[in-house]
């Protein structure tokens, strides 16, 4: 991996992050609706409104506000929560680990179920196993997580009593949220593993591997899937956004103390600086992971090490 490549990726990622920050700020400030009115209610006295406006800095021109926000960001200062008076960075750091844990587990579940399912579907193309796997996949895409979650709670927590209903402390608490969040990704991934595998199965090098007497499993997992890693990694990088989207709802269902539930709580408490902080941190995480995916990509496939050609 060359330094040049690394550096250019880093710079473009920083630019995107800068753009993301500005966009979040401007969109949240420019959409119709007055946060002060929403916070205080329509019957608030004009003097109170003016005081809150001043306290939030909303009386200043928007670019000036953006500038001072960016300035604060350089010192990791995202302002103060209107509700708990805590610094928002502190609030975010308390919640970040739970979200990382949840998305990591969901990702693992997705990969573990999707790989065998996709391989099976491809090997038995057009047969029962294939249509079964594809039906599962279509179902997985169609079941919204805010429905799957409650159904899983009903079955495994309330009826069978195997798992805790909510929270993060009890043992096994991670299982249901991770399944809820990972199912859609597993469904998409299984489809893709299938189609990638179908494309390579008729290639010459697969026939060669078979001809030299390699075991079937080795042909599939080493030779055929070896070429499927690239699209899989790309897909995972792109789907991470959907995973983070889903985390907001999943965390709310299970009372999982992560960034997503913090976002929803902050919206309900009309704590705008905190809303902004959550959106910012989640989006920046997404950009950073995508950049890492990009780098991993070029590490997996030597052809893409652009700098070396």
């Amino acid at each position, binding site marked *: 991996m060359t330094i040049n490549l690394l550096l250019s990726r880093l710079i473009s990622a920083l630019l995107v992050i800068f753009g993301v920050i500005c966009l979040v700020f401007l969109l949240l400030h420019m959409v119709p609706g007055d946060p002060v009115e929403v916070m205080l209610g329509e019957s608030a006295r004009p003097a109170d409104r003016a005081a809150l406006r001043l306290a939030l800095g909303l009386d200043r021109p928007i670019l000036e506000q953006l500038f001072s926000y960016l300035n604060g960001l350089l010192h990791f200062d995202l302002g103060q929560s209107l509700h708990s008076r805590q610094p928002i960075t502190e609030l975010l750091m308390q919640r970040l680990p739970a979200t990382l844990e949840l998305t990591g587990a969901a990702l693992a579940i997705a990969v573990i179920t999707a790989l065998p399912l996709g391989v099976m579907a491809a090997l038995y193309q057009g047969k029962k196993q294939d249509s079964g796997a594809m039906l599962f996949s279509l*179902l997985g895409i169609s079941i919204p997580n*805010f429905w799957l979650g*409650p159904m899983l709670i009903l079955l495994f927590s309330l009826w069978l009593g195997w798992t805790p209903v909510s929270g993060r402390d009890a043992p096994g608490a991670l299982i249901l949220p991770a399944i809820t969040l990972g199912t859609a990704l597993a469904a998409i991934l299984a489809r893709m593993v299938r189609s990638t595998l179908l494309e390579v199965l008729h290639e010459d090098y697969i026939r060669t591997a078979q001809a030299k007497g390699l075991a079937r499993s080795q042909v599939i997992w080493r030779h055929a899937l070896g070429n499927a890693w690239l699209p899989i990694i790309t897909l995972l990088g792109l789907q991470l956004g959907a995973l983070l989207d889903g985390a*907001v709802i999943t965390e709310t269902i299970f009372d999982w103390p992560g960034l997503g539930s913090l976002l929803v709580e902050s919206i309900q408490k009309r704590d705008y600086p905190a*809303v902004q902080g959550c959106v910012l941190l989640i989006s920046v995480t997404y950009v950073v992971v995508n950049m890492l995916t990009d780098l991993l990509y070029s590490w997996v496939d030597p052809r893409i090490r652009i700098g070396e050609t």
Partner: protein
Amino acid sequence: MGFRLSLAILLAWALAALFGPLLPLAPNQIELAQILTPPSGSELLGYDDLGRPLLDRLLVGARISFSVAFGVVLIAGSFGVVVGTLSGYFGGLFDLLIMRIIDIFLAFPGILLAIALAGVMGPGIDNLVIALSVVGWVGYARLARSQVLSLKQRDHITAAIALGSSEWIIVTRHLLPLIAAPLIIEATFGIASMVIAEAGLSFLGLGVQPPDASWGSMIRDGARYMLVAPHMVMVPGFAIMLIVFSLNLLGDRLRDKLDVRSNRTE
């Protein structure tokens, strides 16, 4: 196999949405004696925690989900197609600017931004449509742009230019009809994801406000009574799943029929 069934489901959805107001529905009528009554032959889909009929609420919710999904796809889709087409056709500085904006939007988890926007604007259906449209146009813009880019060197465009056709004619007569197929497929999947998004935002309390019914808020209300009245969650959930499943199936079919490879990765 299940294709006709899913078409029938979508038709029922559309009919319920379009003609629901003509039916004598009483989604907010409270029958105290019926609180939490499960579905049965005489009570149809049963009643919720306040004694309101779930069937009526389901049909009213169909109208919400239908109009939000089509509304967002129509607004976001037409804005995206116009921007993407212009960007691809004229190129230059404008294209560069649009591409940067698209890149930045794509760097977001989309629904997250919509949730935050809807939260800041305050709950309500119109705000929900605005929030989802602000986030949703990017996909259509990118698709339209890449399609136009791949088409504009074609001979028939060159011929049209040589014949002196105006740019308006070239774009509307010679480009847009050719990119319609992939856009229709994208829109079909788009409607499916907007049905989920509307219900999801309503589930979070950002869509319709009580006492009005939306499938998402019905699931949220029902989650509290899951042990005693699981039908409150199951009924709207099945409805969402059937619709989204049918739309995805339709999208797959269209893609096979129209033989368009999705060029999502550029």
